[in-house]
């Protein structure tokens, strides 16, 4: 997993609420056995016509936002299916950070496993960031994970909360499985105790 430390980039405004993972990556692209290459199908049915033509008004097709690295989104981003193909597609497109008032639980978890930082902000802050994102390519937002701040193109800075352990893993690009396997003796002990308490499991 790539580290996430500090990012300055273009933010795309997507004010629609309840953007679900079926929108982020429609099911026809889940028939892969790889993690890579999904960026070209990110938001496929919103981004392209059935004939594969770009839909000009879709935000990521607009010249100002084609290189976006941040999305500022409406409430409940990433709801629905657990498909990790959603963060894989975002990452492959180049998105490293999503900011919203709320995220669906599984999508939120999946982001951290892939070096994407999901940031929860109150509505009034999201409103400010959404307006900043609407300014386009010359307005670059800065996300600083170490200091837990998001700074708009005109210098307004907002603090955000992030789980300490997840922050540590993102800053250092740590592999969860490797960390857990350091606790393998605790797992062994638990299994022995549980096998006596609940032998039917």
């Amino acid at each position, binding site marked *: 997993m790539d580290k996430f430390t500090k990012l300055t980039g273009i933010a795309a405004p997507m*004010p629609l609420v309840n953007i679900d993972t079926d929108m982020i990556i429609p099911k026809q692209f889940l*028939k892969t056995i790889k993690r890579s290459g999904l960026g070209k199908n990110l938001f496929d049915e919103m981004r392209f016509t059935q004939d594969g033509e770009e839909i000009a008004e879709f935000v990521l097709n607009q010249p100002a936002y084609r290189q976006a690295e941040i999305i500022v989104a409406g409430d409940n981003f990433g709801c629905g299916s657990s498909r990790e193909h959603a963060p894989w597609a975002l990452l492959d497109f180049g998105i490293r950070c999503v900011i919203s008032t*709320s995220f669906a639980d599984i999508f939120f978890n999946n982001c951290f496993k892939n070096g994407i930082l999901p940031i929860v902000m109150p509505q009034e802050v999201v409103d400010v960031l959404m307006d900043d994102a609407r300014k386009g390519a010359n307005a670059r937002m800065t996300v600083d994970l170490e200091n837990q701040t998001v700074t708009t193109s005109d210098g307004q800075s907002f603090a955000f909360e992030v789980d300490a352990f997840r922050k540590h893993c993102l800053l250092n690009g740590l592999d969860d499985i490797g960390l857990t396997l350091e606790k393998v003796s605790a797992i062994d002990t638990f299994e022995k105790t549980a096998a006596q308490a609940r032998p039917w499991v």
Partner: protein
Amino acid sequence: MAGKTLYDKIWDAHVVDTQDDGTCLLYIDRHLVHEVTSPQAFEGLRMTGRKVRAPEKTIAVPDHNVPTTPGREDPKNMTEDSAIQVAALDKNAKDFGINYYPVSDIRQGIVHIVGPEQGWTLPGMTVVCGDSHTATHGAFGALAHGIGTSEVEHVLATQTLIQKKSKNMKVEITGKLRPGVTAKDITLSVIGATGTAGGTGYVIEYCGEAIRDLSMEGRMTVCNMAIEGGARAGLIAPDEVTFDYVKGRPHAPKGAQWEAALTWWKTLKSDDDAHWDKVVTLKGEDIAPVVTWGTSPEDVLPITGVVPAAGDFKGGKVEAAQRSLDYMGLKPGTPLSEIKIDTVFIGSCTNGRIEDLRAAAAILKGKKIAPGMRAMVVPGSGLVRAQAEEEGLAEIFKEAGFEWRLAGCSMCLAMNPDQLSPGERCAATSNRNFEGRQGRGGRTHLMSPAMAAAAAVTGHLTDVRDLI
């Protein structure tokens, strides 16, 4: 000190390790695996030389993209990319020594139907699967939730999951349901009341007389859609209904172990003085047969209602509602019962169990589907299908004009050939009405099996109470 909720009790029984910041390592008792969200996880194990820690607690079944038509055992009858995913699962199950039900096995079906049917899912367990509808298993009083593929790999390698505890939410459905009202109407009505983010950060426990009165099939329907309300998991405390369902299943405990298990299972309920972070109460008698009108599962209305206007909503939902109305091709003020449909899909992990097929067949008996209607029944497992044939339900469906398919997820997510074409409008017993969910441009109205059967007969959304 306040008492514990059911969630607290299951959680406490599975904590392997707690870090200073409250991050826990939670032991996983059952890991269910399917072909779409697992290939990258197994690939990760191979690349790092890791093994599956507990293959005996890991169960795999292909369900998401398999065709539901005869001859599917032959990969030539699958699309190439689906065949590759199914072949990968075949190989991974064999190489890593995990329990497996291939398409040729009568026990194959939707992973959330197979688990309970085979007795893999038991009260008090932790159950995960790379699929959001894992919440289904909560009906047994098991802590069950969906995970991403990275977490699938983590569970395969360590039999644990890194978790922080969620908050406790109680959803109580008091009193009795009225005739024609089902578990699906309960679960949709709860989402309609709380919104799709209402449960975010919570584990829900469903309780109250109307929940107690449900069969296990109905309870699974309720818990299945906890995720649509945003919750990590949905739970129902186990009781005699649960124990009767579990007893005698192939992987349920037997003899002295059954007795020991039962003793523990009977303690699995929330204490009277447990603390709840959020409480939602609905009266069973207030719940009507409902349908969805929009493209979010929270867009729920009684069938007696009318299509709303975007202006009826507030904040960001105004734009979303307008987008839904445009996508669905609906005019505000239209009575829901006047919306014409051309496709009916009965099946899915929400409503693909025997009781669902019985409820639909009861409406269809002696009737025909409307002219021009495409209607299909996709049983949730090979065993549900066999039982429905034994009970004569299959004949009722076929005589009414339904296609009688093989088991799988099918048109719930339309990864296999069962899809809607642009503009087609479907009465579906599944769980998501998102844009494009059942096929690009397809329009989905969610409802109970009895309501879907009623719509098949009349050709439009219909109050099932008019047909019973």
